[in-house]
């Protein structure tokens, strides 16, 4: 770990920092930040975080295992319907639909291990042809 000096709101702050596994880590006050070195070198317009947040794409919020897939391709789902249950660190997480939609494609099966951000389900929002 290194301690570097960072100017924040006009004041020089001592900030613990370190590069681990292609990410830069640093701590300011109570909060620890990490930033991907590859993303860091790209201009801010390239990074499209909104893609993973679009409600028609259900992505894994964490690495883990699929324990239940409630849906099949072609069926319709309502806002709030459970789509998939996954397990990580011995806890279950239920992924629900944020929209009324038709299930266009299911990319995973029960027992499958996925990484963070893996696309699990593609939905087709209601009223969009």
């Amino acid at each position, binding site marked *: *770990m*290194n301690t*570097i*000096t*960072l*100017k*924040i709101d006009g004041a020089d702050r001592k*900030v*613990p*920092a*370190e*590069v*681990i*596994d292609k990410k*830069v*880590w*640093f*701590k*300011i*006050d*109570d*909060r*620890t*930040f*990490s*930033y991907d*070195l590859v993303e*860091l070198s790209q201009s*801010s317009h390239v*990074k499209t*975080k909104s893609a993973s947040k679009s409600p028609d794409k259900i992505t894994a*919020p*964490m*690495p*883990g295992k699929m*324990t*239940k897939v409630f849906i099949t391709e072609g069926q319709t789902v309502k806002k709030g319907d*459970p789509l998939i*249950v996954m*397990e*990580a*660190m*011995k*806890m*279950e997480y*239920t992924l629900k639909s944020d929209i009324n939609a038709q299930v266009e494609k299911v990319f995973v099966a029960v027992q499958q291990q996925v990484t963070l951000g893996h696309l699990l389900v593609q939905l087709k929002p209601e009223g969009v042809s």
Partner: protein
Amino acid sequence: MKQIRRVAIANRGEVAVRIIRACEELGLETVLLHSDVDIQSRAYRLATKTICIGPAATALSYLNIEANINGALAAGADAVHPGFGFLSENADFAQQCEKAGLVFVGPTSAAIRKLGDKVSFKNLAKKAGLPLIPGYDGEDQSVSGLLKEVEKIGLPVIVKAAAGGGGRGMKLIREMSEAKDLIESAQRESQSAFGSTQVFLEKYLERAKHIEFQIFGDCTGHVVHLFDRECSVQRRHQKIIEEATSPSLTDDLRRRMGEVACTIAALGKYTNAGTVEFLLQDDEFYLLEVNTRLQVEHPVTEEVLGIDLVKMQILTAQEKFIFSTNEIRIPRGHAIECRVYAEDPFMGGVPSTGLLGTVSWPEGPRRRYEYGFEAGDTITSNYDPMIAKVIVWDENRPRAIQKMVRTLKDSVIFGVHTNIPYLIQILNHPEFQSGKMTTRFIETYFAEGLKSDLTEDQIKKWAQEVNKNLKGSVTESNSLSLVSNLPSPWGSHWRAV
């Protein structure tokens, strides 16, 4: 007296380290029974001996009774400490240890069956006229049958794994429309965590506090309570912050609850360490369950009483520990424990995994750190997200809270995100500081995790600045290593001409 020379540890992480330390202080050797991925852990490096008992999947290693017993026997252990979680409350495991001639560091298998099994515990408490929460614990485990019982009890209702503990396989039903999904989910979690789909139902108390009493039975069968802890700060029924003693108990309540705790323990002929859990609402208390093992939050009891529960456990297993009858135990000051989870509080608390860089826990008076992993170890998604515990003690509760905030602020963990910012916000919350928080505290104030008040651009700017600074220091060290590639000055001086 039972001869114990070498203790096998059927566990991992920080509790394995805790047990190794206690054994070594008592002059005993240790054998860590670990899964293949856990060679990357502190316990692996600290144990006298280590034996790999299976792959990462818990069912094949830490929950595998045969593998644990075979490992312990192969390593020449004469006792097994199960820690908490995994097989610690499994009566079959305790019994098979007994059969194999291994001393089980904990209660007898009979006591685990009587008090650890929730159905048997309830029957025992009911018969003795002890206070219980209304619920259903019948044989009909069909989803339709359970749904009818949920209606009968009246919402909100909680579903729990009959074989479980620690929040696994536990779900809260608030709306009848969610009931079916939640019951099925509880059954699946229960199957995956404990190998049984059996669940029971209970009325959910809305404004309850979680209070528990540490109990301890010495080797003569004399059971005492070692006062109370409060663990009302829970998320998804997993405790986050625990303290001793509870800020909510009057002397009268403490005395009455302590008596109930000792009564139920005595009915189960309890020996060794255990915990009797209660819910307290409007000065009425209800027995919740007995945890027939060492508890995650045992350090806060140790800090206010100045005792070592793990050593007491081992000495009791050796039949060396007897409470003196005229000993007066009075808790002093206030202790708080915070559980450090590998998760990102700014992303709704999703698990965070990765290679650990710096792990720094700065020392100070009455700060205590229990941790299982260090720089170079990898936190995987195979196991529980709790990677460490921070415990502080001070003269009174407000000072202990201040000390905990400072201690958490001093700590640095790089490589995984942790709930430390979340813990600090909880500690600073007026309701927590008032001591009036209930088990709904997190749900009410912190359900969504933390909101970032920083823009992505700001964070990126800092990260770029930090990275540039770091590169500066890296280049320096690189330029040093370049020196060796330059022609040696000696060579230049003694050049042949």
